[in-house]
């Protein structure tokens, strides 16, 4: 049943841009929402972009690569840099990654992340999903986000950044040559 649901969702995800994104290697998605002082950033990417494979790790090298990638995703500071002046402090970090030894049960998860998992399924695709919640003392200073993750994970060649801030909503594509996402509405 679950597979069927995912199949259905993947089938339409080309249209539904911020539902489960189309599983397209080389492409990842970052969603940024700001309200008052609280800032939410969601990251979603096919596992292949991060480690170069999409199955349960088979070798020690792959296991290590997976652990390293997970560790990096767990550290928001290494993935995207927020302006110093905004004084944002990470309050909550949530990583949902398939095939991980430390992968917690489905039950402990917010069910919003259910499509992030396809544990143990060697033939299919696998996505990594992460959510970071920040508290920003000076949210007005949040004028742009440096997309470090494009440097950290060269497998991501295109990053779609959706944002919803008091200044408006936007949806733009970024690549390694353009790794600074403005949070002001550009006409």
């Amino acid at each position, binding site marked *: 049943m679950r597979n069927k649901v995912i199949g259905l969702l993947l089938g339409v995800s080309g249209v539904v841009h911020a539902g489960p994104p189309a599983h397209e290697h080389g492409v990842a998605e970052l969603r940024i*929402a700001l309200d008052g002082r609280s800032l939410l950033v969601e990251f979603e990417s096919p596992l292949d972009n991060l480690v170069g494979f999409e199955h349960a790790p088979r070798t020690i090298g792959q296991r290590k690569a997976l652990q390293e990638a997970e560790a990096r995703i767990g550290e928001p500071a290494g993935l995207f840099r927020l302006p110093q002046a905004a004084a944002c402090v990470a309050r909550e970090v949530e990583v949902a990654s398939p095939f991980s030894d430390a992968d917690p049960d489905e039950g402990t998860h917010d069910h919003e992340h259910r499509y992030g998992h396809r544990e143990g399924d060697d033939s299919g695709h696998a996505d990594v999903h992460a959510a970071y919640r920040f508290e920003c003392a000076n949210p007005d200073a949040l004028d742009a986000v440096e997309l470090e993750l494009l440097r950290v994970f060269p497998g991501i060649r295109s990053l779609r950044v959706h944002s919803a801030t008091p200044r408006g909503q936007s949806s733009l594509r970024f690549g390694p040559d353009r790794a600074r996402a403005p949070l002001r509405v550009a006409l």
Partner: protein
Amino acid sequence: MRAPLWHLAWRSLANRSLTVALTVLAVAISVAMLLGVERLRQDAREGFARTVSGTDLIVGARSGPVQLLLYSIFHLGDATNNVSWRSLQSIAAHPQVAWLVPLSLGDTHRGFRVVGTSRAFFEHYRHGRGRTLAFEQGRAFDGVFEAVVGAEVAARHGYVPGQRIVVSHGAGGLGSAEHDDRPFTITGVLARSGTPVDRSVLVSLEAIEAIHLNWSGGVRMPGLDLPAERIERFDLTPKAVTAALVGLKSRTAVFSVQRHVNDFRDEPLLAILPGATLQQLWSMLAIAERALLAVSALVVVAGLAALVAVMVAGLNERRRELAILRALGAGPGRIFVLLALESQFIAVLGCATGLALVHTGILVGAPWLEARFGLELQAGWPGSSEWRMLAFVLLAAAVASLVPGWRAWRQSLAEGMTIRI
């Protein structure tokens, strides 16, 4: 005493004022086109962006995000499917949803869209920098057969509160069915907002249900005339609407509510972030915009080519003038600079005239464009992109002005002072 070169150039131009004026006009028109296209592009974008402020999500039947945005907000194109009322109620009950305004489209009044909605629309719809809709006259609809008209609808047909109007079934036009058994009383006229609301007739959702009560298959059933009093006794809760605007308690929930709607179990639904979708639309249209810009750039090239042609052609007539300058001691270098300066003068004049043309055009054409297409143009000081374009034109003109300069320089070297008449 040697007159400064620019003075000489200016006097020489003044001497040939008609040719120069025509050349200035050619450059001016090309520059006006370039700047006009850019201004239109920017103002259209701004107008669209202004329309969707204040709404966190738009919910509709699953189709394309851009399509949903266009038919629900901008009344462009049509919906493929409706959203069931039950699903909307369930979305409205989501703990993060602060308000939900349903929209029901499909009927028209004299070519203007009739929008079925709730009174909450007047409270929550925002345009510009968070401005609400204001009433020019009257109040919001209250009863079933009451309507509020937008500023443009009222202006076109001279509507005032108290008047009665009839709604057409579907797109309207010759031979289409009229809901003339159920006229609406206008209760209010909205102030101009520069959004598609100006060109809409707003009624309650119940009214949309009520006017279709005794209809079947797109026509009124003969012999079944329901008096208005009896209609109130029917259950006028809509079964489905076209789309809904959703506001959230916290913006940070926008992506999780969007997922909630997109993963909705009972019905394939789509939720979009209107501002983000608008940007996707612009990136899709970028190719067309670039093509338009390329065409206007080519027109500028044509204008500058005309400038060069006029200057070069003029050299023949000016052999004597240039020869005299040479006789008075002007070196070939000075002749070169003189001609280049003259061309540059024309280009600068052309740019200034072009700028003036665009602004006059905007001042004259803006009311018509706004009435006809809802496009609001702003006459104002040119923005940074327009200055960049002007600088680019002047740079191109500077390069182009080297051609007549070079021709004059060569001519004056080759022919010296021997004039064959």
